[in-house]
């Protein structure tokens, strides 16, 4: 089984620039998550999709962050404009649409540095 794929692995941008991250979840996984992990902290949920619909984006800074999951498969997360405090690792995770005991499968993340 192929894992969750994310790209790019690293990105360095200047503040006020825009950036986009891409995620391809495990085939057949209906639920997709984007997490933000600041250095030394645990992952913080940004947005959750079920198929191609958003079920929770309460923690997403919507003035600068946006995400979509067209066709219920791949997803992109965009930041525009970026701020210094957006420097973090952005993790994508997926899980099948089954019961409450199925774990999340994570990609290796995109490390964003905003200078």
């Amino acid at each position, binding site marked *: 089984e192929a894992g969750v794929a994310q790209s790019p692995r690293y990105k360095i941008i200047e503040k006020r620039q825009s950036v986009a991250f891409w995620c391809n979840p495990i085939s057949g996984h209906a639920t997709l998550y984007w997490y933000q992990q600041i250095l030394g902290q*645990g992952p913080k949920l940004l947005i*959750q999709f079920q198929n191609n619909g958003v*079920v929770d984006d309460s923690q997403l800074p919507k003035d600068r962050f946006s995400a979509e999951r067209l066709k219920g498969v791949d997803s992109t997360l965009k930041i525009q404009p970026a701020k210094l405090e957006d420097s973090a690792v952005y*993790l994508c995770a997926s*899980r099948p649409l089954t019961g409450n005991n199925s774990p999340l499968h*994570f990609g290796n993340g995109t490390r964003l540095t905003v200078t």
Partner: protein
Amino acid sequence: SQQGEEDPQALSIQEGENATMNCSYKTSINNLQWYRQNSGRGLVHLILIRSNEREKHSGRLRVTLDTSKKSSSLLITASRAADTASYFCATPRSMDSSYKLIFGSGTRLLVRP
């Protein structure tokens, strides 16, 4: 907001020793999960314990759950240098149709050869 908090924040032990990490959480749960994160990588699921279980084993891992104290512990026996990683507890929050996994702040484990 963080649901779980791990203790200690950092732990350094000698290879062969046991490592114990603790997690406290705030709300009622139906399961608690532990994940490992190697440097520069994503999180990997280790073990899940249901709310009606008190202890669970998987290889060198032993997890306990005390729902009355809202706490869990992860024990790694006979540690190896390869166990060096950050360990996170996570608890699910189900509201309506969403299923969110909320992570703690993690314990950074260093196993010295």
